[in-house]
């Protein structure tokens, strides 16, 4: 297990550094001029040169990259002041330390993603189990058609409808908002409810359909028959044997979806006017704010890599045939 972790972490580090380099150099390959964002209306070539100097953009790109990466490990000094490690630089657009902004935004994205994931994982697999248990009955048919509908929906559509109906129309729920769970767990919960609900509606379909077919597959497995031949009850066979087998692929799918939840955070956060990493990523791109973009990429990348390690470890716990080494 330890060797597995060490190896995966090393791999993750390599990938992250690689992505950071690609991001950094790609940024300069694109037609972007960060200076324009801070140039007001008096934007002469002189003014651009001055701002480029202020931003450190007058140096060769590899040198800038080196300074940036070194800053993450060792901290960096700017004209504004010292930026302690991990230093992701100062934002081009608002002169804030990027790290502070990320620390402020990350919990929002995490709350949306993990909370939503918890809901759709539990409800989705639950519905799939029900459908599998009552295969061929009306319950199964209802869920199957519902999941077809859910699968065709998109966050921005369901999100807008949910806001219009649940908040503006029926006043059942509050406008989505983020309150730190540490300050007010109840507000945190009610503020996140709609995003979770909407994410669930969209993702539940996949999980219920997948769980159903996996369960049907698993229930036909030899070892499940063996369990029945031993006199195990229906429930035991269903959950302890068949579901255990169905769980591993579900966890794998979940690992992939966790990545797409982070990626989809952009749309989720815009739909619900929330401030997370997704929005930060978009604004950093449109504001050609390289330090923020780099910070978001690195943190997002790390989050996805860590999530994948957790998923792999979980998979190994579920299926002992998978060896972690």
């Amino acid at each position, binding site marked *: 297990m330890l060797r597995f972790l060490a190896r995966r972490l090393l791999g993750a580090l390599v990938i992250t550094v690689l992505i950071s380099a690609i991001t950094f150099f790609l940024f300069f390959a694109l037609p972007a001029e960060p200076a324009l964002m801070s140039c007001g209306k008096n934007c002469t070539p002189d003014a651009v040169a001055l701002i480029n100097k202020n931003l450190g953009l007058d140096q060769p790109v590899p040198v800038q990259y080196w300074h940036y990466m070194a800053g993450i490990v060792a901290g960096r000094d700017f004209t504004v002041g010292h930026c302690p490690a991990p230093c992701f630089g100062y934002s081009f657009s608002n002169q804030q330390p990027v790290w502070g902004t990320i620390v402020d935004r990350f919990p929002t994205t995490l709350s949306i993603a993990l909370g939503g994931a918890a809901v759709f994982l539990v409800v989705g697999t639950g519905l799939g189990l029900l459908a599998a248990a009552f295969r*061929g009955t009306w319950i199964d048919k209802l869920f199957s058609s519902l999941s077809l509908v859910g699968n065709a929906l998109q966050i921005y559509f369901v999100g807008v409808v949910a806001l219009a109906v649940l908040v503006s129309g029926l006043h059942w729920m509050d406008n989505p908002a983020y309150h730190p769970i540490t300050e007010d767990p109840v507000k945190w919960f009610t503020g996140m409810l709609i995003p979770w609900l909407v994410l669930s509606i969209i993702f539940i379909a996949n999980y219920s359909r997948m769980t159903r077919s996996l369960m049907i597959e698993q229930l036909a*497995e*030899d*070892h*499940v*028959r*063996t*369990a*029945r*031949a*031993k*006199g*195990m*009850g*229906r429930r035991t066979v269903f959950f*302890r*044997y068949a579901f*255990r*087998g169905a769980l591993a692929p579900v966890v794998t799918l979940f690992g992939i979806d966790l990545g797409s939840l982070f990626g989809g955070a952009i749309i989720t956060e815009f739909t619900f006017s929330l401030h997370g990493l997704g929005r930060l990523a978009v604004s950093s791109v449109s504001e050609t704010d390289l330090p923020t973009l780099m910070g978001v990429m690195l943190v997002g990348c790390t989050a996805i890599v860590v999530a994948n390690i957790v998923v792999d470890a979980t998979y190994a716990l*579920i*299926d*002992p*045939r998978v060896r972690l080494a």
Partner: protein
Amino acid sequence: MDDAFLSVRDLHVRFRTEDGTVHAVDGLSFDVPRGRTLGIVGESGSGKSATGLAVLGLHDPRTTTVTGSVRLGGQEITGAPEPVLEKLRGNTVAMVFQDSLTALSPYHTVGHQIAEPFRKHTGASRREARQRAVDMLGKVGIPHPALRVDDYPHQFSGGMRQRAMIAMALVCDPQLLIADEPTTALDVTVQAQILDLLKDLQQQTGTAIVLITHDLGVVARTADDVLVMYAGRAAERGTVRDVLRTPRHPYTWGLLGSMPRLWTPVDQPLTPVPGAPPSLLTPPPGCPFHPRCAHTERVGGDRCRTERPELPPGRGAACHLGEERTR
């Protein structure tokens, strides 16, 4: 045989498939007394495994219809409610499956899988059940059972897995053991060990055994009685000695001919039964074996094609050939 522990009468098993109904078992009757081993022999698709599953009531009622009577120690199995069956399975009657790699759960330790039915049927504590699992593993010849009890099936060799499955089946001292091709996946030496193990255990416990196999060699080695199945029906029945020495059904002749013998020269080809088993969707009229039978002309008229031969009670064969049958 009045003291038969397992008594099957006119058993029919029908599967509903997309193409139509498959009549997998078609009016089968047999008995197995305590302490004896019945070998059920036949090609694949002859209905022997379906018979085994019917004895445990394991067929899926949504796709399968089981009629007739299966009595275990006097208790009727067919149509019995699930809770009753659950109490019998693994307890009174247990089953050993062919492929131990797929038949054991990859997600649970061997010990857990052995202990689980013991706890359920005897109400033993977790610790007692675990000790029982260790004992059982020892009994079936697993070295260092206390160490191996927490291993997963994939950490066992094929032979060890099959032993573990036997341990699992016998953990509650069942009165009937159904072993469905228990040695097919194993190499010859291991095969022999497993069969000896089954014999030994039977001598200790007096368990009745139904040994389902396609291999007459296995039957010759292990069984007391033989039931030859063809196309869902019994073709021939008798003691191992009788059936192997004086087979009466042309199909049994074919099976015996296809059996490799140690004294057969290596370069002499085996003589398998020519042709393929009939489709059970549309079984042939008359004797189901007649399309493959070389002796139909010895029977008068069209009888083989039109008239279904009956298996007489006791020793006998379902064939229209008279007493003059010889190979």
